[in-house]
């Protein structure tokens, strides 16, 4: 016999304390559900594959300062020498680093003209070694050939004929075509400059991890002559750190009047890019944990107060034949009822807060599975919080029933 009915009716006669606790549980659940949803959302953003072989990639900048510094010759020779280093898989010059936060983007459209709807796309200028260095996979069409690679000056406005785009970009530009059917299609940049898609790669991320079109990327077959060059380098597995030293030494030993700067690994770059996400996750976890502890302490406090207020009643129940377990169960059931009311309220308020967050901050909708999980967690926390005071209640002597108040 769980005494559910009498306990519920007794609670209805002492609503205020129970209601306040139920509201606290509802607020905790609301924040818990939405905070964990945001944490998981951030985790899934951070877990998105960049398309790179991040553990084995690094990059550096080469900036010329000498009067006779010939960037084109230096870049060609640098890359040739770097590729010859044992432990290096490949190297390319690149204008921007994926995930780094800084880069280029353009608009591509499938029709010429200023009125045509453009789709934003990140731009990486690479040579024919670019795909192998980045470790992206070609899923349709072909890679650039060496003869297609051109040079782009600081003030250049024209674009080469051929490009390679990601599968996500192809689906955005040609939603009705299969990926392979997008190969050979013409797209337009700068309103009316035609470009031909010669290849589709599986995946590569833009420099901006918070961009909604982060998966839309195009590779352009050009080396840049902007005075400062970035070399993106991929090593054999486990060779990265050794190759960083070897590459720096190689380049510094070439006395061509330039500086080598900003040597960074892709793992460092990823950590920097997602530092804000990780901080937010930590803060949200702390909030959820603290709130859950406060709720548990609230339950402990309320039940302790209730036990102290009802010592004679508990003694009477013991005198009437309640076992210690029946006293503990009484408080567990009482708390389960209050907690359940709070959780039912919490379901509504969790959904309401999520709808508001979706509207205002464009967050994704919370998955329904969060609700039963949060309910189960808070129910268990509530029951554990009750156990201590309930055990103290069960230890009250039945002889208390015969003592005057």
């Amino acid at each position, binding site marked *: *016999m769980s*005494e559910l*009915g*009498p306990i519920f*009716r*007794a609670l209805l*006669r*002492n609503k205020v304390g129970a209601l306040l606790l139920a509201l606290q549980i509802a607020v905790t659940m609301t924040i818990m559900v939405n905070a964990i949803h945001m944490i998981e959302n951030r985790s899934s953003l951070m877990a998105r594959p960049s398309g790179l072989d991040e553990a084995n990639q690094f990059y550096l900048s080469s900036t010329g300062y000498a009067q006779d510094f010939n960037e084109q010759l230096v870049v060609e020779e640098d890359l040739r020498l770097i590729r010859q280093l044992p432990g290096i898989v490949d190297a390319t010059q690149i204008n921007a680093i994926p995930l780094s936060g800084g880069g280029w983007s353009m608009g591509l459209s499938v029709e010429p003209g200023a009125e045509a709807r453009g789709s934003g796309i990140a731009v990486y200028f690479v040579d024919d070694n670019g795909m192998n260095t980045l470790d992206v996979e070609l899923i349709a069409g072909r890679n650039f050939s060496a003869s297609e690679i051109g040079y782009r000056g600081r003030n250049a406005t024209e674009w080469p004929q051929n490009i390679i785009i990601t599968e996500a970009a192809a689906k955005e530009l040609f939603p009705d075509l299969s990926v392979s059917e997008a190969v050979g299609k013409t797209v337009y940049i700068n309103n009316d400059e035609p470009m031909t898609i010669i290849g589709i790669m599986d995946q590569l991320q833009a420099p901006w991890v918070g961009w909604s079109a982060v998966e839309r990327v195009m590779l352009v077959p050009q080396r840049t002559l902007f005075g400062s060059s970035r070399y993106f380098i991929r090593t054999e597995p486990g060779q990265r750190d050794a190759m960083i030293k070897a590459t720096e030494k190689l380049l510094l030993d070439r006395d061509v009047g330039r500086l080598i700067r900003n040597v960074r690994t892709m793992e460092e770059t990823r950590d920097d890019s997602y530092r804000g996400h990780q901080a937010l996750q930590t803060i949200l976890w702390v909030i959820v944990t603290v709130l859950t502890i406060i709720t548990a302490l609230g339950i402990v406090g309320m039940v302790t107060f209730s036990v102290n207020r009802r010592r*004679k*009643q508990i003694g*009477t*129940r*013991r*005198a*009437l*034949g*309640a*076992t*210690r*377990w*029946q006293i503990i169960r009484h408080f567990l059931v009482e708390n389960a009822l209050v907690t359940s009311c709070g959780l039912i309220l919490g379901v509504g308020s969790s959904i309401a807060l999520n709808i508001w967050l979706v509207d205002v901050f464009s967050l994704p909708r919370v998955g329904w599975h969060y609700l039963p999980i949060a309910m189960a967690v808070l129910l268990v926390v509530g029951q554990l919080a009750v156990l201590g005071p309930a055990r103290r209640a069960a230890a009250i*002597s*039945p*002889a208390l*029933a*015969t*003592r*005057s*108040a």
Partner: protein
Amino acid sequence: MLKMTNIKKVFRTEVVETHALRDFSLHVKEGDFVAVTGPSGSGKTTFLNVAGLLETFDEGDYLLDGQSVKGMSDNQLARMRNEKIGFIFQSFNLLPDLNLFDNVDVPLRYRGFNAKERKERIVQALETVGLGSRMKHLPAQLSGGQQQRVAIARALAGEPRFLLADEPTGNLDSAMAQSVLELLEDINKAGTTIIMVTHDPILAKRAGRNVFVRDGQVTEVTKEAELDELVQKTAQVGG
């Protein structure tokens, strides 16, 4: 029915030992209506607590319904209290947030009766004490006498082997006390054994048998005059 032999109960603190019961022996037979009287601090309440299995004792033997309670676990004692003893307390001890029906229901739920049987017993018990029409009332909506009747109904509903009444009329005016006492007498006549602890000799004289407790020991009182004499002596000593 209830047989206590040489019961000893000592309360100990760090500095003092209080012998609440010493060589306390009492035999109550089925159908008895025993009044236990004595001055304050004589050991009446300790006797009641030990007899009602609310407290354990240090030495001696206690047979309840032929069964020794010595060494019983807490759960066994709870079950014995629930099944064999009905309690009536001086301050009624009704649960204020429960209506009369639910109050009488409390020990029956601990007993594990099903809902149908509980309902039958509750209705019958409340009708026996004349409160069948007020089952949904809260204790606070009743007079003291009515509350004590509910407590009696709660004690009776489980059909216990005997009732233990602790100053059952102590908080009632004389009219209500009379009414409650008559109810207890009717219950006794119907066959239920009653042990009533009281400090009131007039009330005690209504019982079929009187015992007097002083300094934790019991004296059987066979004549009404003896009871008056004992009460007077105690009053003089105390005064």
